[in-house]
């Protein structure tokens, strides 16, 4: 879909590659309103995560013994919790933790998964067999069950939650990188580089990685959405971010005993999760659609 436009643009303004690209991007955004919405919300979420102080109305740790469990009002938009803390400000500050934990986890999975996948696919043989089986085992277990078990066995903490989520999503990147490496290794130019004696590391980094990076990017987006959900689940179960530190999941954990009494403690953090995951999914879904069509398999 994108390519004919690109050639049009190129013909119109051959001397301004950057402007041409910007135009192409603008055209894609105009064609895909859902993508635009997704990017917009993601951007706002990112701003909240970077500058929570700007958005928050209270200190997230400030307790107010005189105003516990108050419903939403003009003073406390999302109400207050059992200790009289402002739920809105806690949700705002929780954004940073939630996004950071999910982001670092996916980064870990991307790094480990794609490195192992490239090695496995490029070299094949015994290493490939061993890594492949191991990844299959991890892949076949339900994500949440595995994350709960890992985080549980290692002990509840942010670091261990990151490890658990990272391990769960490593096989996804492994698979993408491995199949990409296998396909690319068979290409004539890669074989030629091998024949003229280029070093393996150079071939993998210079020739194979750039060709799987688009797929890895789509996978990163998709996994990031799931990682936010997984982090929230772990923290909700008390296996991730620990109270009193706010994260979306840990606020929900605190609100859980008061669900019927103080629903706002559960409603708003959940909506925040929904909104952020949805925005990432909107981007991921569109990317996948476009990628699939360009591959001719959609």
């Amino acid at each position, binding site marked *: 879909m994108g390519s004919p436009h690109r050639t049009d643009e190129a013909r119109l303004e051959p001397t301004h590659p950057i402007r041409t690209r910007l135009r192409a991007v603008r055209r894609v955004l105009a064609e895909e309103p859902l993508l635009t919405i997704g990017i917009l919300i993601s951007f706002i979420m990112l701003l909240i995560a970077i500058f929570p102080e700007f958005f928050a109305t209270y200190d997230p740790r400030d307790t107010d013994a005189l105003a516990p469990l108050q419903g939403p009002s003009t003073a406390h938009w999302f109400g207050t919790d059992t200790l009289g803390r402002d739920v809105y400000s806690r949700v705002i500050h929780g954004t940073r933790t939630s996004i950071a934990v999910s982001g670092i986890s996916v980064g870990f999975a991307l790094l480990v998964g794609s490195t192992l996948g490239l090695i496995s696919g490029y070299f094949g043989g015994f290493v490939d067999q061993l890594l492949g089986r191991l990844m299959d085992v991890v892949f076949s*277990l*339900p994500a*949440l069950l*595995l994350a709960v078990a890992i985080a549980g066995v290692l*002990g509840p903490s942010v670091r261990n939650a990151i490890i658990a989520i990272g391990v769960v999503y490593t096989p996804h990147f492994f698979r993408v990188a491995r199949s990409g490496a296998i396909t690319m290794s068979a290409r004539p130019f890669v074989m030629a580089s091998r024949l003229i004696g280029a070093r393996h590391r150079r071939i993998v980094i210079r020739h194979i990685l750039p060709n799987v990076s688009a797929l890895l990017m789509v996978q990163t987006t998709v996994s990031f959405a799931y990682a936010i959900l997984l982090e929230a689940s772990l923290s909700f179960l*008390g296996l991730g971010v620990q109270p009193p530190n706010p994260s979306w999941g840990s606020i*929900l954990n605190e609100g859980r005993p008061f669900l*019927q009494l103080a629903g706002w403690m559960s409603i708003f953090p959940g909506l925040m999760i929904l909104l952020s995951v949805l925005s990432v999914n*909107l981007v991921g879904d569109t990317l996948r659609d476009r990628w699939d069509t360009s591959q001719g398999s959609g």
Partner: protein
Amino acid sequence: MSLIPGSVISQLVDQAAGSDPEKLAEMEAFLGLDRPWYAQLGSWLANVVQGDLGNSWRSRIPVADLLGPRLMVTLQLSAMATVISSLVLGIPGGLIAAAYKSRWPDSVVRVVSLLALSVPVFWMGSMLILVFSVWFNWSPPLTWVSPFEDFGANMRMMILPAIALGLAGAAPLVRMTRNSILEVMGQNYIRTARSTGATEGRIRFRHALRNAIIPVVTSAGLQFGFLIGGAVVIEEVFSLPGVGRLLLQAISQRDFPVVQACVLTIGIFLIFLNIAVDILYAYLDPRIKLGD
């Protein structure tokens, strides 16, 4: 296993006899924790192969006895959620999206399924509890009833968690059904059916659906396995005595034979599920013969 903070020994001993180092060592030896981790793992595996999942460190009850009844709860929940996500939501949603491809119902289905995909399962559970407790004065029951004892009561407590779980699993099935139907509708045998004068409805349901459903059934079967994962947290929200709650309880008590057994049992169940899905696939698609 030395990494683990607050080992079971210190927990058990704290309760029992304070921190007498002699008692501690005795206890460790009794549980076999004085041996290196690989020896522990080895003997555990050896026992598992013989069908012995070991005893709970906590309650001394054989893990198999703890796990059995709870597995039934989890499987019932996941099975109901699978039915909801495929038969109630996924396949009808995909059919609608395919029938109105690129028109507004298609977009609505797409946005709704993306929404369902983006909702945290446990939060959906909480919201259902909230809504039902406010409107119908319903709250999650304190004791679980087996479907064989009182089917109605069992359904009343299982249907909401199953819906919360099923919603999460519907989105991939909607997408799969839609794309599968669209692909099949372009096949030559659909044109043949049209050339015989069959109605569009008949073509869609008698000819296209039967072919398009094959990959959907496969992925719904595999979805079953992933919904078991979601069941862990849904059980906690709805206080259902399933494997998920057992697992969380065992984790908080650092009762590792139970944790290992939970993961292992579900892993083994998933292997059998995969085999079952393969058999079902061969049954649905006459072109595939088992053993080929």
